[in-house]
Protein backbone atom coordinates (compact mmCIF):
# COMPACT_ATOMS: atom_id res chain seq x y z
CA UNK A 1 0.00 0.00 0.00
CA UNK A 2 2.69 2.46 1.00
CA UNK A 3 4.63 1.43 -2.13
CA UNK A 4 1.65 2.38 -4.22
CA UNK A 5 1.24 5.76 -2.55
CA UNK A 6 4.98 6.42 -2.49
CA UNK A 7 5.32 5.52 -6.14
CA UNK A 8 2.45 7.80 -6.98
CA UNK A 9 3.59 10.74 -4.87
CA UNK A 10 7.35 10.45 -5.30
CA UNK A 11 7.74 10.86 -1.54
CA UNK A 12 6.71 8.73 1.41
CA UNK A 13 3.26 9.40 2.85
CA UNK A 14 5.01 11.43 5.56
CA UNK A 15 6.41 13.57 2.73
CA UNK A 16 9.95 12.25 3.13
CA UNK A 17 12.42 11.71 0.27
CA UNK A 18 13.48 8.21 -0.62
CA UNK A 19 16.94 7.05 0.43
CA UNK A 20 17.26 5.05 -2.79
CA UNK A 21 19.05 7.76 -4.83
CA UNK A 22 21.75 7.85 -2.12
CA UNK A 23 22.16 4.09 -2.35
CA UNK A 24 22.30 4.18 -6.14
CA UNK A 25 24.99 6.85 -6.06
CA UNK A 26 26.94 4.81 -3.54
CA UNK A 27 26.70 1.60 -5.55
CA UNK A 28 27.58 3.37 -8.78
CA UNK A 29 30.86 4.29 -7.14
CA UNK A 30 31.38 1.00 -5.32
CA UNK A 31 30.88 -1.10 -8.46
CA UNK A 32 33.02 1.34 -10.46
CA UNK A 33 35.79 1.10 -7.88
CA UNK A 34 35.62 -2.69 -7.85
CA UNK A 35 35.72 -2.89 -11.65
CA UNK A 36 38.48 -0.30 -11.94
CA UNK A 37 40.74 -2.04 -9.45
CA UNK A 38 39.84 -5.45 -10.83
CA UNK A 39 40.99 -4.30 -14.25
CA UNK A 40 44.40 -3.43 -12.81
CA UNK A 41 44.83 -6.91 -11.39
CA UNK A 42 43.39 -8.47 -14.53
CA UNK A 43 45.91 -6.68 -16.73
CA UNK A 44 48.81 -7.93 -14.63
CA UNK A 45 47.62 -11.53 -14.92
CA UNK A 46 46.97 -11.32 -18.65
CA UNK A 47 50.34 -9.69 -19.30
CA UNK A 48 52.22 -12.60 -17.74
CA UNK A 49 52.46 -13.85 -21.33
CA UNK A 50 55.15 -11.18 -21.80
CA UNK A 51 57.33 -13.06 -19.34
CA UNK A 52 56.77 -16.57 -20.66
CA UNK A 53 54.13 -19.00 -21.83
CA UNK A 54 54.89 -21.14 -18.79
CA UNK A 55 54.31 -18.29 -16.39
CA UNK A 56 51.00 -17.40 -18.03
CA UNK A 57 50.06 -21.08 -17.91
CA UNK A 58 50.93 -21.37 -14.22
CA UNK A 59 48.82 -18.30 -13.37
CA UNK A 60 45.91 -19.66 -15.42
CA UNK A 61 46.08 -23.00 -13.62
CA UNK A 62 46.33 -21.21 -10.29
CA UNK A 63 42.94 -19.64 -10.98
CA UNK A 64 41.67 -23.08 -11.90
CA UNK A 65 42.59 -24.22 -8.40
CA UNK A 66 45.93 -25.94 -9.08
CA UNK A 67 46.85 -25.48 -5.43
CA UNK A 68 43.84 -27.54 -4.28
CA UNK A 69 42.93 -29.92 -7.08
CA UNK A 70 44.91 -32.31 -9.28
CA UNK A 71 42.81 -31.59 -12.38
CA UNK A 72 42.18 -28.04 -13.60
CA UNK A 73 38.76 -26.82 -12.48
CA UNK A 74 37.77 -24.24 -15.09
CA UNK A 75 34.38 -23.79 -13.46
CA UNK A 76 36.15 -21.73 -10.78
CA UNK A 77 37.13 -19.24 -13.46
CA UNK A 78 33.60 -19.34 -14.90
CA UNK A 79 32.22 -18.59 -11.45
CA UNK A 80 34.61 -15.66 -10.99
CA UNK A 81 33.67 -14.28 -14.41
CA UNK A 82 30.02 -14.65 -13.48
CA UNK A 83 30.58 -12.64 -10.32
CA UNK A 84 32.37 -9.87 -12.26
CA UNK A 85 29.59 -9.98 -14.86
CA UNK A 86 26.98 -9.32 -12.18
CA UNK A 87 28.94 -6.34 -10.84
CA UNK A 88 29.43 -5.14 -14.40
CA UNK A 89 25.70 -5.33 -15.15
CA UNK A 90 24.82 -3.48 -11.95
CA UNK A 91 27.38 -0.80 -12.77
CA UNK A 92 26.11 -0.45 -16.33
CA UNK A 93 22.53 -0.18 -15.07
CA UNK A 94 23.51 2.60 -12.69
CA UNK A 95 25.80 4.33 -15.20
CA UNK A 96 22.98 4.37 -17.74
CA UNK A 97 21.11 6.89 -15.60
CA UNK A 98 23.75 9.49 -16.37
CA UNK A 99 23.98 9.12 -20.14
CA UNK A 100 22.23 11.67 -22.33
CA UNK A 101 18.89 10.15 -23.24
CA UNK A 102 17.64 12.41 -25.98
CA UNK A 103 19.05 14.50 -28.77
CA UNK A 104 18.70 17.81 -26.94
CA UNK A 105 20.67 16.59 -23.93
CA UNK A 106 23.41 15.26 -26.16
CA UNK A 107 23.45 18.41 -28.29
CA UNK A 108 23.55 20.71 -25.26
CA UNK A 109 26.39 18.79 -23.63
CA UNK A 110 28.43 18.46 -26.81
CA UNK A 111 28.13 22.18 -27.61
CA UNK A 112 28.99 23.05 -24.03
CA UNK A 113 32.06 20.82 -23.96
CA UNK A 114 33.18 22.27 -27.30
CA UNK A 115 32.86 25.82 -25.99
CA UNK A 116 34.33 25.29 -22.54
CA UNK A 117 37.44 23.33 -23.52
CA UNK A 118 37.46 22.14 -19.95
CA UNK A 119 39.30 18.87 -19.36
CA UNK A 120 36.99 17.26 -16.86
CA UNK A 121 33.91 18.20 -18.88
CA UNK A 122 35.35 16.70 -22.06
CA UNK A 123 36.57 13.60 -20.23
CA UNK A 124 33.02 12.89 -19.19
CA UNK A 125 32.05 12.58 -22.86
CA UNK A 126 34.84 10.04 -23.25
CA UNK A 127 33.52 8.19 -20.24
CA UNK A 128 30.00 8.18 -21.62
CA UNK A 129 31.07 6.93 -25.07
CA UNK A 130 33.40 4.25 -23.75
CA UNK A 131 30.80 3.20 -21.18
CA UNK A 132 28.24 2.82 -23.93
CA UNK A 133 30.68 0.82 -26.06
CA UNK A 134 31.26 -1.53 -23.16
CA UNK A 135 27.61 -2.49 -22.98
CA UNK A 136 28.50 -4.60 -26.01
CA UNK A 137 32.26 -5.14 -25.89
CA UNK A 138 32.34 -5.94 -22.17
CA UNK A 139 29.31 -8.21 -22.30
CA UNK A 140 30.65 -10.15 -25.26
CA UNK A 141 34.03 -10.65 -23.63
CA UNK A 142 32.61 -11.67 -20.28
CA UNK A 143 30.15 -14.10 -21.83
CA UNK A 144 32.89 -15.66 -23.94
CA UNK A 145 35.16 -16.13 -20.94
CA UNK A 146 32.36 -17.49 -18.83
CA UNK A 147 31.37 -20.26 -21.24
CA UNK A 148 34.88 -21.00 -22.53
CA UNK A 149 36.93 -20.57 -19.38
CA UNK A 150 38.74 -23.84 -20.16
CA UNK A 151 40.26 -22.41 -23.34
CA UNK A 152 42.20 -19.69 -21.52
CA UNK A 153 45.92 -20.35 -21.77
CA UNK A 154 48.99 -19.65 -23.91
CA UNK A 155 47.59 -21.64 -26.84
CA UNK A 156 43.86 -21.00 -26.58
CA UNK A 157 44.13 -17.28 -25.88
CA UNK A 158 46.63 -16.71 -28.69
CA UNK A 159 44.51 -18.64 -31.16
CA UNK A 160 41.50 -16.57 -30.11
CA UNK A 161 43.38 -13.39 -30.97
CA UNK A 162 44.90 -14.53 -34.26
CA UNK A 163 43.08 -17.65 -35.48
CA UNK A 164 39.60 -16.35 -34.58
CA UNK A 165 40.64 -12.80 -35.51
CA UNK A 166 39.42 -11.37 -32.22
CA UNK A 167 42.29 -8.90 -31.89
CA UNK A 168 40.41 -5.90 -33.36
CA UNK A 169 37.66 -6.55 -30.82
CA UNK A 170 40.15 -6.69 -27.96
CA UNK A 171 41.93 -3.59 -29.19
CA UNK A 172 38.67 -1.64 -28.92
CA UNK A 173 37.87 -3.17 -25.54
CA UNK A 174 41.32 -2.30 -24.25
CA UNK A 175 40.96 1.35 -25.28
CA UNK A 176 37.46 1.56 -23.83
CA UNK A 177 38.40 -0.02 -20.50
CA UNK A 178 41.58 1.96 -19.96
CA UNK A 179 40.06 5.34 -20.78
CA UNK A 180 36.80 4.66 -18.96
CA UNK A 181 38.36 3.08 -15.90
CA UNK A 182 41.18 5.61 -15.62
CA UNK A 183 38.86 8.59 -15.84
CA UNK A 184 36.38 6.81 -13.56
CA UNK A 185 38.88 6.21 -10.76
CA UNK A 186 40.07 9.82 -11.01
CA UNK A 187 36.48 11.02 -10.83
CA UNK A 188 35.85 8.83 -7.81
CA UNK A 189 38.59 10.66 -5.93
CA UNK A 190 37.13 14.03 -6.89
CA UNK A 191 33.58 12.92 -6.15
CA UNK A 192 34.19 11.70 -2.61
CA UNK A 193 37.10 13.96 -1.71
CA UNK A 194 39.70 11.17 -1.50
CA UNK A 195 43.34 12.37 -1.37
CA UNK A 196 42.00 15.92 -1.25
CA UNK A 197 44.57 17.27 1.19
CA UNK A 198 44.54 20.90 2.32
CA UNK A 199 44.23 22.29 -1.22
CA UNK A 200 41.79 20.52 -3.50
CA UNK A 201 43.03 22.43 -6.57
CA UNK A 202 46.61 21.28 -6.10
CA UNK A 203 45.68 17.70 -5.26
CA UNK A 204 43.34 17.42 -8.23
CA UNK A 205 46.09 18.51 -10.57
CA UNK A 206 48.34 15.81 -9.13
CA UNK A 207 45.54 13.24 -9.29
CA UNK A 208 45.06 14.00 -12.95
CA UNK A 209 48.77 13.57 -13.64
CA UNK A 210 48.77 10.24 -11.82
CA UNK A 211 45.65 9.25 -13.74
CA UNK A 212 47.36 9.87 -17.09
CA UNK A 213 50.48 8.03 -15.96
CA UNK A 214 48.42 5.02 -14.94
CA UNK A 215 46.36 5.11 -18.14
CA UNK A 216 49.54 5.38 -20.21
CA UNK A 217 51.13 2.51 -18.34
CA UNK A 218 48.18 0.16 -18.71
CA UNK A 219 47.63 1.11 -22.35
CA UNK A 220 51.27 0.35 -23.13
CA UNK A 221 51.17 -2.90 -21.18
CA UNK A 222 47.88 -3.83 -22.81
CA UNK A 223 49.08 -3.15 -26.33
CA UNK A 224 52.29 -5.12 -25.78
CA UNK A 225 50.32 -7.99 -24.33
CA UNK A 226 47.86 -7.97 -27.22
CA UNK A 227 50.76 -7.94 -29.68
CA UNK A 228 52.36 -10.87 -27.87
CA UNK A 229 49.21 -13.00 -28.13
CA UNK A 230 48.78 -12.10 -31.80
CA UNK A 231 52.41 -13.01 -32.53
CA UNK A 232 52.14 -16.33 -30.74
CA UNK A 233 48.82 -17.03 -32.45
CA UNK A 234 50.45 -16.31 -35.80
CA UNK A 235 53.26 -18.74 -35.03
CA UNK A 236 50.85 -21.49 -34.02
CA UNK A 237 48.60 -20.95 -37.03
CA UNK A 238 51.49 -21.18 -39.46
CA UNK A 239 53.04 -24.19 -37.80
CA UNK A 240 56.12 -22.24 -36.78
CA UNK A 241 56.04 -23.73 -33.28
CA UNK A 242 54.46 -26.81 -31.73
CA UNK A 243 51.23 -26.56 -29.81
CA UNK A 244 51.96 -25.35 -26.31
CA UNK A 245 52.86 -27.97 -23.71
CA UNK A 246 53.77 -26.75 -20.27
CA UNK A 247 57.47 -27.30 -19.66
CA UNK A 248 56.82 -29.17 -16.40
CA UNK A 249 54.52 -31.62 -18.20
CA UNK A 250 57.17 -32.44 -20.80
CA UNK A 251 59.57 -33.36 -18.04
CA UNK A 252 57.06 -35.77 -16.52
CA UNK A 253 56.64 -37.50 -19.89
CA UNK A 254 60.37 -37.81 -20.16
CA UNK A 255 60.59 -39.40 -16.69
CA UNK A 256 58.00 -42.00 -17.63
CA UNK A 257 59.93 -42.93 -20.74
CA UNK A 258 63.11 -43.45 -18.76
CA UNK A 259 61.42 -45.84 -16.37
CA UNK A 260 59.85 -47.83 -19.22
Amino acid at each position, binding site marked *: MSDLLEGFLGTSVEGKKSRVPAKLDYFQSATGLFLGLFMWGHMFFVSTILISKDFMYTITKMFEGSFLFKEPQSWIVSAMVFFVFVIFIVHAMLGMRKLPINFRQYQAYKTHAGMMKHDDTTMWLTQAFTGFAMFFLGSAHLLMMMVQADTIGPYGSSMRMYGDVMWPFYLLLLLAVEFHGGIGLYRLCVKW*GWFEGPDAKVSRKKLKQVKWLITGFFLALGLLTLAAYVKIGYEYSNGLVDKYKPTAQIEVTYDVKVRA
Partner: protein
Amino acid sequence: MSRTITIRAMKYNPQSKLSKAHFAEYKLEETDGMTLFIALTKIRETMDADLSFDFVCRAGICGSCGMMVNGKPALACRTLTKNFPDGVLQLMPMPAFKLIKDLSVDTGNWMNGMSKRVESWIHTNHKPDISKLEAPMEPKLADETFELDRCIECGICVAACGTKLMRPNFIGAVGLNRVARFAMDPHDERTDEDFYELVGDDDGIFGCMSLVACEDNCPKHLPLQSKIAYMRRKLVALR
Protein backbone atom coordinates in the same frame (compact mmCIF):
# COMPACT_ATOMS: atom_id res chain seq x y z
CA MET B 1 50.93 50.72 -28.30
CA SER B 2 47.26 50.18 -28.59
CA ARG B 3 45.67 47.65 -30.88
CA THR B 4 42.28 47.10 -32.38
CA ILE B 5 40.24 44.38 -30.75
CA THR B 6 37.26 42.57 -32.15
CA ILE B 7 34.19 41.88 -30.06
CA ARG B 8 31.74 39.45 -31.54
CA ALA B 9 28.54 39.42 -29.52
CA MET B 10 25.51 37.23 -29.88
CA LYS B 11 22.40 39.29 -30.50
CA TYR B 12 18.93 37.88 -30.08
CA ASN B 13 15.68 38.97 -28.58
CA PRO B 14 13.55 35.95 -27.72
CA GLN B 15 10.53 38.24 -27.15
CA SER B 16 10.48 39.41 -30.73
CA LYS B 17 9.14 37.30 -33.56
CA LEU B 18 11.36 39.19 -36.00
CA SER B 19 14.61 38.76 -34.11
CA LYS B 20 16.99 36.13 -35.42
CA ALA B 21 20.01 35.04 -33.39
CA HIS B 22 23.27 36.22 -34.95
CA PHE B 23 26.69 37.55 -34.05
CA ALA B 24 27.38 41.26 -34.40
CA GLU B 25 31.00 42.26 -34.80
CA TYR B 26 32.48 45.43 -33.35
CA LYS B 27 36.01 46.71 -33.75
CA LEU B 28 37.44 49.19 -31.28
CA GLU B 29 40.71 50.60 -29.99
CA GLU B 30 41.94 48.87 -26.89
CA THR B 31 42.75 51.24 -24.03
CA ASP B 32 44.96 50.71 -20.99
CA GLY B 33 43.49 48.29 -18.47
CA MET B 34 40.37 47.85 -20.61
CA THR B 35 37.82 45.46 -19.19
CA LEU B 36 34.96 43.90 -21.10
CA PHE B 37 32.68 46.22 -19.16
CA ILE B 38 34.49 49.25 -20.57
CA ALA B 39 34.56 47.78 -24.05
CA LEU B 40 30.85 46.92 -24.04
CA THR B 41 29.88 50.32 -22.66
CA LYS B 42 31.89 51.97 -25.41
CA ILE B 43 30.18 49.82 -28.02
CA ARG B 44 26.78 50.71 -26.65
CA GLU B 45 27.62 54.43 -26.54
CA THR B 46 29.28 54.73 -29.92
CA MET B 47 28.25 51.82 -32.12
CA ASP B 48 25.14 49.95 -31.11
CA ALA B 49 22.70 51.45 -28.65
CA ASP B 50 20.57 48.32 -28.94
CA LEU B 51 23.12 45.89 -27.43
CA SER B 52 21.88 44.52 -24.09
CA PHE B 53 24.10 43.41 -21.21
CA ASP B 54 24.04 43.70 -17.44
CA PHE B 55 26.30 45.53 -15.02
CA VAL B 56 25.95 47.10 -11.62
CA CYS B 57 29.11 47.25 -9.52
CA ARG B 58 31.88 46.98 -12.15
CA ALA B 59 34.05 45.49 -9.41
CA GLY B 60 33.24 41.79 -9.19
CA ILE B 61 30.89 42.19 -6.26
CA CYS B 62 27.31 42.21 -7.48
CA GLY B 63 27.50 39.17 -9.75
CA SER B 64 25.41 40.72 -12.55
CA CYS B 65 27.81 40.57 -15.45
CA GLY B 66 28.45 36.87 -16.05
CA MET B 67 28.68 35.90 -19.72
CA MET B 68 30.40 33.36 -21.93
CA VAL B 69 33.71 34.81 -23.08
CA ASN B 70 35.28 32.70 -25.81
CA GLY B 71 33.22 29.78 -24.54
CA LYS B 72 33.96 30.10 -20.84
CA PRO B 73 31.75 31.83 -18.29
CA ALA B 74 33.36 34.87 -16.65
CA LEU B 75 32.53 38.17 -15.00
CA ALA B 76 32.81 40.74 -17.78
CA CYS B 77 33.83 43.49 -15.36
CA ARG B 78 36.79 41.40 -14.23
CA THR B 79 37.85 40.31 -17.70
CA LEU B 80 40.78 42.26 -19.12
CA THR B 81 40.83 42.43 -22.90
CA LYS B 82 44.64 42.41 -22.90
CA ASN B 83 44.54 38.78 -21.72
CA PHE B 84 43.34 37.74 -25.16
CA PRO B 85 46.44 37.70 -27.36
CA ASP B 86 44.61 37.50 -30.69
CA GLY B 87 42.34 40.36 -29.65
CA VAL B 88 39.13 38.52 -30.51
CA LEU B 89 36.45 38.04 -27.86
CA GLN B 90 33.35 36.10 -28.71
CA LEU B 91 30.54 36.82 -26.27
CA MET B 92 27.45 34.75 -25.62
CA PRO B 93 24.88 34.88 -22.86
CA MET B 94 25.22 32.31 -20.08
CA PRO B 95 23.26 29.15 -20.84
CA ALA B 96 21.00 27.55 -18.23
CA PHE B 97 19.35 30.89 -17.39
CA LYS B 98 16.41 32.55 -19.05
CA LEU B 99 17.64 34.71 -21.90
CA ILE B 100 16.36 38.27 -21.66
CA LYS B 101 18.13 39.74 -24.67
CA ASP B 102 21.59 39.49 -26.26
CA LEU B 103 24.02 39.02 -23.37
CA SER B 104 21.51 39.68 -20.62
CA VAL B 105 20.08 36.72 -18.72
CA ASP B 106 17.83 36.45 -15.67
CA THR B 107 19.99 35.06 -12.89
CA GLY B 108 18.04 36.89 -10.18
CA ASN B 109 14.82 34.94 -10.32
CA TRP B 110 16.72 31.68 -10.64
CA MET B 111 18.85 32.46 -7.59
CA ASN B 112 15.76 33.44 -5.67
CA GLY B 113 14.16 30.10 -6.50
CA MET B 114 17.37 28.30 -5.52
CA SER B 115 17.47 30.10 -2.14
CA LYS B 116 13.91 29.07 -1.41
CA ARG B 117 14.54 25.55 -2.59
CA VAL B 118 17.43 24.98 -0.18
CA GLU B 119 15.82 27.20 2.50
CA SER B 120 18.82 29.43 2.57
CA TRP B 121 18.38 30.90 6.03
CA ILE B 122 19.20 29.93 9.62
CA HIS B 123 16.67 27.50 11.05
CA THR B 124 16.50 27.60 14.82
CA ASN B 125 13.90 26.83 17.46
CA HIS B 126 14.81 29.50 19.91
CA LYS B 127 13.92 33.08 19.25
CA PRO B 128 17.14 35.04 18.87
CA ASP B 129 17.46 37.99 21.24
CA ILE B 130 18.99 40.68 19.08
CA SER B 131 19.93 42.81 22.08
CA LYS B 132 22.47 40.15 23.04
CA LEU B 133 25.63 39.01 21.28
CA GLU B 134 25.25 35.99 19.04
CA ALA B 135 26.56 32.73 20.50
CA PRO B 136 30.28 32.59 19.72
CA MET B 137 31.66 30.20 17.14
CA GLU B 138 35.05 28.53 16.80
CA PRO B 139 37.11 31.09 14.81
CA LYS B 140 38.27 28.42 12.38
CA LEU B 141 34.74 27.18 11.80
CA ALA B 142 33.51 30.75 11.46
CA ASP B 143 36.16 31.42 8.82
CA GLU B 144 35.22 28.31 6.91
CA THR B 145 31.52 29.08 7.08
CA PHE B 146 31.78 32.72 6.08
CA GLU B 147 34.19 31.79 3.33
CA LEU B 148 31.22 30.08 1.67
CA ASP B 149 29.15 33.24 2.16
CA ARG B 150 31.43 35.04 -0.29
CA CYS B 151 29.28 33.68 -3.12
CA ILE B 152 27.97 36.57 -5.22
CA GLU B 153 25.30 34.52 -7.01
CA CYS B 154 26.77 35.30 -10.39
CA GLY B 155 25.60 31.98 -11.82
CA ILE B 156 28.95 31.17 -13.41
CA CYS B 157 29.11 27.78 -11.71
CA VAL B 158 25.65 27.02 -13.11
CA ALA B 159 26.53 28.11 -16.63
CA ALA B 160 29.76 26.08 -16.44
CA CYS B 161 27.96 22.89 -15.47
CA GLY B 162 27.39 20.26 -18.15
CA THR B 163 25.08 18.34 -15.84
CA LYS B 164 22.88 21.40 -15.39
CA LEU B 165 22.67 21.91 -19.15
CA MET B 166 21.47 18.35 -19.67
CA ARG B 167 19.14 18.35 -16.67
CA PRO B 168 17.51 21.74 -16.11
CA ASN B 169 16.24 20.90 -12.61
CA PHE B 170 19.72 20.28 -11.24
CA ILE B 171 20.39 22.59 -8.29
CA GLY B 172 23.96 23.45 -9.32
CA ALA B 173 27.07 24.16 -7.27
CA VAL B 174 25.74 27.44 -5.91
CA GLY B 175 22.81 25.60 -4.27
CA LEU B 176 24.93 22.75 -2.93
CA ASN B 177 27.46 25.24 -1.59
CA ARG B 178 24.63 27.04 0.17
CA VAL B 179 23.48 23.83 1.82
CA ALA B 180 27.06 23.11 2.95
CA ARG B 181 27.26 26.60 4.39
CA PHE B 182 24.24 26.07 6.64
CA ALA B 183 25.20 22.49 7.42
CA MET B 184 28.48 23.81 8.85
CA ASP B 185 26.96 26.68 10.80
CA PRO B 186 26.27 25.72 14.44
CA HIS B 187 23.59 28.42 14.60
CA ASP B 188 21.50 26.37 12.21
CA GLU B 189 19.78 23.52 14.03
CA ARG B 190 18.87 21.55 10.91
CA THR B 191 20.08 17.94 10.88
CA ASP B 192 21.54 16.00 7.99
CA GLU B 193 18.09 14.40 7.66
CA ASP B 194 16.64 17.86 7.09
CA PHE B 195 19.23 18.65 4.45
CA TYR B 196 18.52 15.33 2.79
CA GLU B 197 14.95 16.48 2.30
CA LEU B 198 16.26 19.52 0.40
CA VAL B 199 18.93 18.04 -1.86
CA GLY B 200 18.87 14.25 -1.34
CA ASP B 201 17.94 13.28 -4.89
CA ASP B 202 19.15 13.21 -8.49
CA ASP B 203 18.29 16.90 -8.93
CA GLY B 204 20.44 17.62 -5.91
CA ILE B 205 23.66 16.22 -4.55
CA PHE B 206 23.38 12.80 -6.23
CA GLY B 207 22.91 14.40 -9.65
CA CYS B 208 26.37 15.97 -9.57
CA MET B 209 28.67 14.18 -12.03
CA SER B 210 31.86 15.72 -10.59
CA LEU B 211 32.74 17.65 -13.73
CA VAL B 212 34.07 20.42 -11.46
CA ALA B 213 33.78 23.18 -14.05
CA CYS B 214 32.07 25.08 -11.20
CA GLU B 215 35.22 24.85 -9.12
CA ASP B 216 37.44 25.82 -12.03
CA ASN B 217 35.43 28.87 -13.07
CA CYS B 218 34.02 30.39 -9.85
CA PRO B 219 35.33 33.97 -9.81
CA LYS B 220 35.36 33.91 -6.01
CA HIS B 221 37.40 30.69 -5.93
CA LEU B 222 34.99 29.04 -3.52
CA PRO B 223 35.92 25.46 -2.53
CA LEU B 224 32.98 24.02 -4.46
CA GLN B 225 34.56 20.66 -5.28
CA SER B 226 35.38 19.89 -1.67
CA LYS B 227 32.06 21.21 -0.28
CA ILE B 228 30.05 19.13 -2.73
CA ALA B 229 32.10 16.06 -1.75
CA TYR B 230 31.51 16.95 1.90
CA MET B 231 27.72 17.09 1.45
CA ARG B 232 27.76 13.92 -0.61
CA ARG B 233 29.63 11.99 2.08
CA LYS B 234 27.30 13.33 4.76
CA LEU B 235 24.07 12.54 2.94
CA VAL B 236 25.09 9.16 1.57
CA ALA B 237 25.95 8.02 5.10
CA LEU B 238 22.39 8.54 6.38
CA ARG B 239 20.43 5.42 7.28
